[in-house]
């Protein structure tokens, strides 16, 4: 099986210029390959670099050294050096990213927030809305909230809007940063099912889950991020 994502020798440090120039080395020569239809769990305490790795793959954080090769429309593209236009296209079609919190836009309805990725892909408004209604129903967002802006929603509701938005379109690579935090048990199970369905349909999922029970239900390979250094040859698939 060919990898869809190859991380080669990447390093990341943060220099805090206004805090005595402190340098934080978060990743050091990290290499790993990721495969379609497989799930990888990033483990380790806060500060171990789990979110940092996800954001680097998404190019939301810049990579100091190394390469992040992403299979995009049958070609490998290095996220570290890709042009802005290529990154926009990769984010539209190839890599999905579900953050920990929803960035709410005032005056935009929950349904419109959810269907935006489909609209951007050129899906018709009516089809997108139909899919949006399905996923909102599945995530138990009451119908009378759909036309409201998510600004006033509770934390758990906002996170479900965020997940609906993340899962409404399918992506070959999905990055999930604590998607199940702040969810009640029923919705937690729904989200775990959404993740499993994505994997079954061939997505490569990389996620951070703090809940031990969730980790066990999802399965997949686990990576201990506290080790900092990974040699490319030692990682099993």
């Amino acid at each position: 099986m060919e990898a869809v994502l190859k991380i080669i020798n990447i390093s990341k440090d943060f220099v805090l210029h206004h805090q005595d120039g402190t340098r934080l080395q978060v990743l050091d020569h990290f290499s790993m390959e990721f495969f379609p239809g497989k799930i990888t769990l990033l483990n380790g305490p806060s500060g171990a670099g789990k979110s940092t790795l996800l954001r680097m793959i998404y190019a939301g954080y810049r990579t100091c050294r190394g390469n992040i090769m992403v299979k995009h429309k049958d070609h490998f593209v290095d996220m570290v050096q890709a042009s802005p236009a290529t990154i926009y296209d990769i984010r539209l079609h190839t890599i999905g990213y579900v953050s920990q919190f929803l960035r709410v836009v005032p005056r935009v309805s929950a349904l419109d927030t959810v269907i935006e990725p489909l609209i951007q892909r050129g899906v018709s408004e009516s089809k997108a809305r139909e899919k949006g209604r399905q996923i909102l129903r599945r995530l138990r967002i009451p119908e009378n909230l759909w036309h409201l802006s998510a600004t006033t929603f509770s934390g758990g509701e906002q996170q479900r809007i965020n997940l609906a938005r993340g899962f409404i379109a399918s992506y070959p690579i999905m990055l999930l940063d604590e998607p199940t935090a702040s969810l009640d048990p029923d919705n937690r199970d729904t989200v775990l099912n959404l993740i499993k369905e994505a994997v079954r349909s061939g997505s490569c999922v990389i996620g951070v889950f703090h809940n031990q029970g969730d980790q066990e239900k999802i399965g997949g390979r686990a990576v201990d991020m506290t080790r900092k250094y990974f040699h490319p040859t030692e990682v099993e698939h």
Partner: protein
Amino acid sequence: MTGNVPDKSLPLLKVQNLSKFYGKNMGCHDINFELAEGEVIGVVGESGSGKSTLLKCIAGKINTTNGSVFFNSLYGFVDLCQCDELLLRQLTRTQIGYVTQNSVDGLRMNISAGGNIGERLMANGMRNYSQIRKIALEWLEKVEIETNRIDDLPTTFSGGMQQRLQIAANLVTDPKIILMDEPTSGLDVSVQARLIDVLRKLVSRLRLSMILVTHDLAVARMLSHRLYVMKEGKIVESGLSDQILDDPREPYTQLLVSSVLKP
């Protein structure tokens, strides 16, 4: 000058080694960037960092000291700093929109709202009064101004309405690019949200390119694909919006980002 199709292999706008000095004082210096079709760039930085000067140079409102602003127009890849006055006027009237910080500078306060929108159409040769009025009404609706206000003077409008009227008056000629100078400053937060929402929808629906000068980082993040950070007339850092705001590298950018209160 022949009516042609813009060359798709070139960016919509290319700013090259642009500098503007006011006497000995630097406005902006050695600015380089490109803007693609449908792309939104935010320019952030504190007051006096040269953001507005840069925008005025691109808009052809002031003469540049040095450098070029290439615009991929229907008339070819034109350097706005070098082209003749007539062509510049033609381009800034039709293909380039410029929304000023104070609506007093961008609107004619002594003619009606409809007149402000119609003026740009008439400058482009449209003479049919009823058609101009029809288009003006459509644009008032698009920017969420009640159509029965068409004959009122902009002086009777609120600050937010004036800004939205400016946007309508600029977009009516279907420009390729719109330049925005602090469009939300001086507006109440609730009014800001409406303006941003109107802008967001228009930009994506019309596949407009935009350069947005703002000191509001939240506004910049919501609207821009990429950000340029300016300090003392120069660009100190640039990148995708999330890269600049979540992973700032330069000391000045780190200061800027960490100084914002998150509500």
